């Protein structure tokens, strides 16, 4: 309980830190909405005035709002920044562990993103582009699935952070993360449009667990239990891998800055 309270305090600090730049983030959210608008325009041009278009508009805009929770998290879960300025030295000494600490730090950041980025982008999509609201019985499973999507995304970003601890450079790890996430998370294209075998593989990847699966839960196109099973499986695998890799990387950690 004490550890949980400490975690919440870290989240609260992370949330407050972000609030300083609220105006900047509002401008950024308008930019992010434009990215969603581009995707909507592409699908409208391709599908014309069909019933499928309306579902696709909702799909891409819900995903676009969600990228601030399940894709664009701080580079390497803040670890890269801490390696650079040397503050990682204090973090590894704390009793609650690196994974636990960074998780709550990211949770505060993501909660801020939910309030000040997700909701405004979603509202713009609803008011301007005609995004459909979810059925009431889909809402709670969607929120849960979105949270699981965040946990998967957190672990993937955490691995990028570990890459930075190991190689003292984040470029490569971040580029691999962005490439795989961009192509496989289905943010702009649902699985059925992928060619050949990718159609079957894509929904089973951890990347799809961050965008494609939560939004399909929103639309009611996937059974909730299947969605949670895929996401739960990846959280378990990635969580175990994070523990093993953290122990290994901490042994060879080189502290910079000071």
């Amino acid at each position, binding site marked *: 309980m004490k550890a949980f309270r400490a975690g919440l305090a870290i989240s609260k600090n992370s949330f407050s830190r972000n609030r300083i730049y609220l105006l900047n983030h509002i401008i950024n959210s308008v930019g992010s909405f434009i990215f969603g608008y581009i995707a909507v325009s592409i699908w*409208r041009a391709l599908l014309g005035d069909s019933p499928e278009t309306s579902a696709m508009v909702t799909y891409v805009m819900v995903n676009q709002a969600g990228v601030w929770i399940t894709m664009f998290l701080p580079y390497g879960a803040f670890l890269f920044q801490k390696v650079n300025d040397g503050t990682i030295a204090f973090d590894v000494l704390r009793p609650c562990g690196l994974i636990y600490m960074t998780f709550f730090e990211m949770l505060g950041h993501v909660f801020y993103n939910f309030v000040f980025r997700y909701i405004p982008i979603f509202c713009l999509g609803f008011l301007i582009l005609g995004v459909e609201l979810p059925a009431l019985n889909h809402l709670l499973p969607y929120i849960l699935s979105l949270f699981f999507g965040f946990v998967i995304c957190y672990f993937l970003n955490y691995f990028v952070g570990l890459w930075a601890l190991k190689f003292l450079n984040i470029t490569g790890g971040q580029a691999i993360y962005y490439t795989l996430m961009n192509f496989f998370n289905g943010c702009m294209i649902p699985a059925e449009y992928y060619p050949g075998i990718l159609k079957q593989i894509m929904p089973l990847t951890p990347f799809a667990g961050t965008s494609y699966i939560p939004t399909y839960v929103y639309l009611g196109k996937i059974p909730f239990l299947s969605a949670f099973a895929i996401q739960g499986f990846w959280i378990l695998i990635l969580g175990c891998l994070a523990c093993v890799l953290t122990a290994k990387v901490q042994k060879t950690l080189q502290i910079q800055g000071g």
Partner: protein
Amino acid sequence: METFKALFIASLKSQTEYRFNFIMDIILSGLAIFSDFMITLVILSNFKDMAGWNLGEIALIYSIIEGGWGIFRLFGEGLHRFQELTLSGRFDVMLIRPVSTVKQVMLQKFQFRRLGVIGQAVGVGIIGALYADMASPGFFVVYCILIVLSAMLIFSVNLILSAIAFWTIRNEDILVLASYSMRTAAYYPLNIYADFVKIVLTFIVPMATAAYYPMSYLSGKTDSIFALIAPILSLIVFMPLSFWLWKQGEKHYSSTGS
């Protein structure tokens, strides 16, 4: 020119010190950006065209914009990260040197890993030209000129956006709004967007004049010569405007930092 050469060589030497890392950074940076085009590729593998534009023609539009972006980031990284200078107050030093501040900001760092971005853009362009049945020596001469003009146009847009930091100190979110999102919008044919967006992309952030209009002429969709020379017309207006705004910003600049 001597200063440019000396700094260019110094940057190259420092970045190639770890050769394997350097080559991996080039490849991975190119791959990360290429993943954006892969999504377009997957979408268009399901449809014949997008608003009358086939895959090859869209590849050429993407290639001209991305090629220009890659060249800008190779030489203009300092300008792209201009807010770091205004936030830290390091811009003060530049004001007392007898060299143009734009030159000094530009010469701060050359980012050679952007060669990967240029490489993938040119690769997509060559394959696009073959696919669209437009490949000829004459076409490739025009294509190279268009990439250079695109880089110049992106430079002038970014100079304006950087100048905003003289008033606002931070400008990264304005960059997302006016540079990143507009650049992404310019990857696709302009006729998929609403009229308001067409006006913005033609007259306010004129990214569409870099590739869409010239490609309309080259692919026979219009016979107006103004479409072909659209990037030159944009540059005639925007280049002096961007330098004028920079000068105004410089006069307004009040230092920050400690």
